[in-house]
């Protein structure tokens, strides 16, 4: 069984003789073949469809159907017509006018402030 030594080196021959000293005597399990057969039978047998598997399948199918229905409903609904908000400058001006009516009414750019006015009057 061993391949022939093909290098003719004495050292190698001695090395091979030393290596031969490692011969573990392994116990052979008498139940090895039976255990192997058992595992083969287990793996070869068709797996029964369990309750959990069925429950998971139905849950998944239900969730998928519900999601699909929700998508259909969502996409089939008419979208509301969006009315763009037009902010015209005139409207903004009117709003500002209303908010600051008193201030604008009393504002007079040509009238100098009270302090300046009194100094000018003294001069």
């Amino acid at each position, binding site marked *: 069984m061993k*391949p022939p030594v093909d290098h003719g080196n004495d050292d190698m021959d001695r*090395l091979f003789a030393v*290596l031969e*000293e*490692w011969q573990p005597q*392994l*116990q052979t399990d008498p139940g090895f073949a039976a255990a*192997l057969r058992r595992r083969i039978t287990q793996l070869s047998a068709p797996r029964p469809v369990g309750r959990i598997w069925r429950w998971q399948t139905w849950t998944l199918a239900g969730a998928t159907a519900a999601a699909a229905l929700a998508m259909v409903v969502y996409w089939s609904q008419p979208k509301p017509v969006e009315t763009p908000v037009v902010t015209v400058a005139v409207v903004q001006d009117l709003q500002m006018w209303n908010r600051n009516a008193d201030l604008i009414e009393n504002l007079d750019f040509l009238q100098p402030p009270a302090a300046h006015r009194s100094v000018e009057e003294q001069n």
Partner: protein
Amino acid sequence: MPAPRNSDPQSGLRLERDSVGTDAVVLPAVHAVEMAALDTQTGTPDADTALMLRFQAGEEACFDALVERYRRPLQGFVYRMLRDQGASEELLQEAFLRVYLHRDRYRPHAAFRTWMYRIAYRLALNHVRDHRKERAHDSLDEPESAVGALLADRRLNPEQQLLVAADAALRRQRIRAAIAALPERQRTAVLLHRYQGLDYEEIGAILRLSPSATKSLLFRAYESLRRELKDLL
């Protein structure tokens, strides 16, 4: 698709070159049936291949025959790879289980022995990588019958027997440690060559190396071992 290069009309064998450029003997389906009718009691690699083909064809008994034939040699190989008897038994079961479950994948362009050892090698390699930390230290409690034989030697008194047995155990531990210290591929090549009796082509097929690369690998491995075990030679 490999191109036919050479064929033998008598045997029906074809020599083809596969995708990686190696020549392979291809058995046509008709030839496989013929081979199955051959006597498979000789225990040669060809006979094992024939057994495997018969198993592929549906003969369950051929699988049992292969298990019976390969169990011991594979156990020795796997044990030397793992150095753990319990793990080697489990791994051996796994290897045969894979042969059974993946029998359709076997192609007779490779000898069954090579295929079988390749499966065991891959499984052992995975196991070694997964349990690297657990194998940090080597143990002395290896099952050896040599100790028992020495103790049964009536020419030696009990004290001498114990000394000789202890010396033998230490030598074996040195050998184991030297082989274990080799790089993974060199170690596997030595185990397959020295202890399993596989030739360069077979080892190369298992390690996915060319025969010349396998020779080079083995030469380097033996050189390392010769240096490491110099005082034992």
